[in-house]
C-alpha cells in the first residue's frame, strides 16, 4: 500500500501557483512501517517512560490513561486506530502528547523519527478513492512519504 500511495503522489502535478515560500514543521513518527507526520503546533511533549492504566468499556484503540504530572491523559494506540496489528512495545515506543482544541491526548507510536520542514506546496491531499479520514495530507520529503495525521479528527 505504501508504494501505491507513493505512486499516486508522484502522479499528481505540483501546483505552480505563485505561493510564498511557506514551510511548516512536522514531527514524524513510525507506526507499522508507515511514516506519519503531525504539525508541531499540536505537540506538547514526548514521553518515553510511562505506565498506562487500562480503562474498561472503551474502544480497542484507547489503550488507557496515564498520569502526566497530575493530569489524566487518554492514550490512543495509532496502530490499532489505523487498523494495524498490535505489537509488544519496545524501548523505542513512546507517547506523543498532543493538545487539540484544549484537549490533551496522547498517541502511542512505535518510534519517533525527527522534525522536518515541509513546504506547503509539497503537501498534497489524499487521493479521493483512497481516502482515510485520519490522514488529511501527504508530504513528500526526499524519498519518504509522510502521512499527515488529522489531529482534529483524531480527537473526536
Amino acid at each position: 500500500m505504501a508504494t501505491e500511495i507513493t505512486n499516486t503522489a508522484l502522479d499528481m502535478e505540483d501546483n505552480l501557483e505563485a505561493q510564498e515560500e511557506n514551510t511548516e514543521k512536522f514531527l514524524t513518527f513510525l507506526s507499522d512501517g508507515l511514516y506519519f507526520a503531525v504539525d508541531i503546533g499540536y505537540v506538547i511533549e514526548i514521553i518515553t517512560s510511562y505506565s498506562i492504566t487500562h480503562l474498561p468499556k472503551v474502544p480497542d484503540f484507547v489503550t488507557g490513561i496515564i498520569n502526566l504530572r497530575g493530569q489524566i491523559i487518554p492514550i490512543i494506540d495509532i496502530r490499532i486506530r489505523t487498523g494495524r496489528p498490535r505489537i509488544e512495545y519496545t524501548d523505542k515506543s513512546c507517547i506523543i502528547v498532543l493538545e487539540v482544541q484544549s484537549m490533551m491526548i496522547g498517541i502511542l507510536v512505535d518510534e519517533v523519527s525527527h522534525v522536518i520542514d515541509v513546504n506547503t506546496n509539497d503537501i498534497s491531499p489524499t487521493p479521493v478513492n483512497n481516502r482515510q479520514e485520519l490522514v488529511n495530507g501527504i508530504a513528500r520529503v526526499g524519498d519518504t512519504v509522510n502521512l499527515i495525521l488529522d489531529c482534529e479528527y483524531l480527537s473526536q
Partner: protein
Amino acid sequence: MENMLDMYLFETNTLIEQLDEILLNAEKFKTFTAEDINEIFRIMHTIKGSSAMMQFSTLMTIAHRIEDLFYFIRENGVQENYRLELFDLMFRSNDLLKSQVGKIENDESLNDNIDDFIQEVNTFLEIIKGNVPKIDPEETKVASNAAQNDTNQVLPEENLQSGNTVVVFFDEGCGMENLRAFMLISSIQESDIKFTYYPENVENDFSTSEYIAESGFVLKFSNQEDLDAAITIIKGALNIRTYEVLHEEPPKKIEETSVLEQILSQDNTSDVKAEVKETKEVKEVKKEVPEANHDTAPKKQSLISVNLSKLDKLMDMVGEIVITESMVTSSPDLQGLKLDNFTKSARQLRKLTDELQDIVMSIRMVPVSGVFQKMNRIVRDMGQSLGKDVKLTIIGADTEVDKTIVDNIGDPIMHMVRNSMDHGIETRPADRIALGKDPQGEITLMAQHTGSEVIISISDDGKGIDTDKVLQKARENNLLTKPENEYTQKEILQLVLLPGFSTKDKVTEYSGRGVGMDVVKKNIEKIGGVVTISSEQGEGTCTTFKIPLTLAIVDGMEVSVGKSIFTIPIMNIRQSFKATPEDIVYDVNHGAMIRKMDSFYPIIRIHELYNLETEITEITDGIMIWVESGDKSYCLFVDELIGEQQVVVKPLPAYLNSFNVKNSGIAGCTILGNGNISIILDISNLYDAATC
C-alpha cells in the same frame, strides 16, 4: 483598561440587581420606604458617576434623570395615586439600564435614542411636582378620612391658624441666605400678602443664614389662597432648591425624628393623621411596614472580588498537595519502620491539609439565593402579561454551591420557571378552584445538599404534563423508539427533553419553539448533572436538577480486581465481608445473589463487567462489598481490599465523553500515592450498566 471595564460591569450589574430586589419588595408593600428611596438614590448616583467615567453617556443620562426624580421624591414624597405609575416607570428604567449594560457586555454600541424615555421621566417628574401645591378640597377631605394619608396639604378640621406654613430651602452653598430670604419676603409683600416669617431679622442678622441654610426659611400665612399665591412667587424666585408646605408648628429644628415622635404620640385618629406631610408620611409608612424590609441596604461587608481562574489554580494546587501528602506518608521507603515522631507529625500535617481543603472549597461556594431572587422578577412580569396570579416560594436559598454551577443553572432555572408560568399554571382561576386549589398559583424553587450533590427543583401546582399529548407529538416528530404502549410514565416525561420537542401549538413570546428543554438538558449535563421530570395531571409538575459538587475530595476504599485498582466512595459502602457458599444463590443466567439478613442482593462481578483478567473468579475467594446508592443496594465482587484512602477526584478526560464511559459505572479517576491511577466507581451507574 480591560480591568476597569470588568469592574464597571460587575459593579453596575450588582447594583441593577439590588435595584430589582428593592423594587420588587417595595411593590409588594405598595410603597417606597425612606430607606428604599435613599438606596435607589444612592444606586442611581453611583451608576451615574461610574458611567460618566467610562463615558457611557446613555447610561449616565438615564441614571441622572432617575436620580433627579428620586431626589425630588426623597424631599417631597409621592402621592399614592402615582405609585403604580412610579413602580412601572422604575421597572422599565431598570430594564433599560439592563439592556444598555447588556449591549456593553456584547461590545455593541449603546442607543443614543433614549429621548423618549427621558421625556417620560421628565413628564412624570413634572406631574408629581406640579401637584405639590395644589389642594383639591375634595381630595383633602377624602384623604383626611383615610388611615393612610397622602395629600400634602390638608386643612385640619379645627384650627385654620396653625396651618399654611411654607418652609423654603435655598440652593446649597449659594451663600447669603439671609439676604435671599429678605428678597423673597419683599417680593411676597409686594403682592399684598400677609404673612409672618422666621427667622425674623434676616435683613440685618447675618447669623440667620446658617439657620436658614440648615432648617429653611419659614413663612406662615393666614389662609390657603395667600399660601398659594406665595408659592407661585416662591416658584419664580431664584436659588430656591425646594420648599415644603407644613401644617403644624414647625419645631425649632425640623428634625425628622422629633416630628415622628410628635406623630406617634398623637392619637391615631384619621383626621389628625391626615395632616401629616409627605416626608413624615414616609417615615410613618416605614413604621407601618414592619420587619418586611430586611436587606435593602447594601451589604457593607468587606468583600473582595477575585478572578475565578486564580481560584481554579488554588483548587488544583490544594488537590495536588493532598496527593503529594499521601505520597509522602505512605512512601515505600518508610514501610515497616517504626517512626513515632514521624507518625505524629504526619497526622498533624494531615489535619492541616484537611482544613485547607475545606476552606478552599468553601471559597468557591456562593449561595443560590442570587439566582433564585432573579426569578421573582420573571414571575412578576409574566404574571402581569399573562394575567395569572402566581407567587414564588423559595426554599433553601442559603444553600451554597460552587460558583461555576451557579453561573450555569441561571438560564435553565429561568426556562423552567417560564415554562411553569406559561404552560403549567392554569389560565383561569376558576379552573384552579374547581380542582380545589388556591386561585393563586404557586411556583416553588428549592435547593438542598445531599453530601455529594446539590438538588435543585422547580415545581408548580399547575395542570401537569399531558402524557397523551406528549406521546402524540413525539409520534408526529418521529421521536419514538419503541411502541407507544411500552413507555412508562417516567419515560414519556423524559421525551420532553428531546431536541425539537414542544406540544405548544403556537409560538408565543415565551415558548413554543421547541428549543428550550433540550438546551436546559445540555446546560445541566455540561456541569455534570442530570435532569428529571415528574408530573401528575391536574396536580403539577416538578423538574429536578441533580448536580454533583465539583472537585470532590472523597474518602474511598481501594480494591483490586486483577491488575486494576478501583476506588469505591466510602459513603456508598455499607459493609465488606467474605461470602460463605451457603449464602450464595445462583440463577440460570450465571448471575448470583447473596443472602444477607433475610434479604437477597444481586452480586455484580467486576471482572466480568469490565473484562478484566484475574485469578479470583469464585465468589467465595474474593471479597464482597455491599454498596448502596439511592434506592439501589447490591454487592460487588472484587479480589481484595487494599485500604482506605482519601482521594482527589479527577474528571475523566473530555475525549472519553464520546464513548459514554460515564454510563458504565466510572465516575472519574484519581492518582494514588505511588503515582498510579485508580478508577473511581459510580455505584449508581454501575448497577444500571450491569443490569441492562
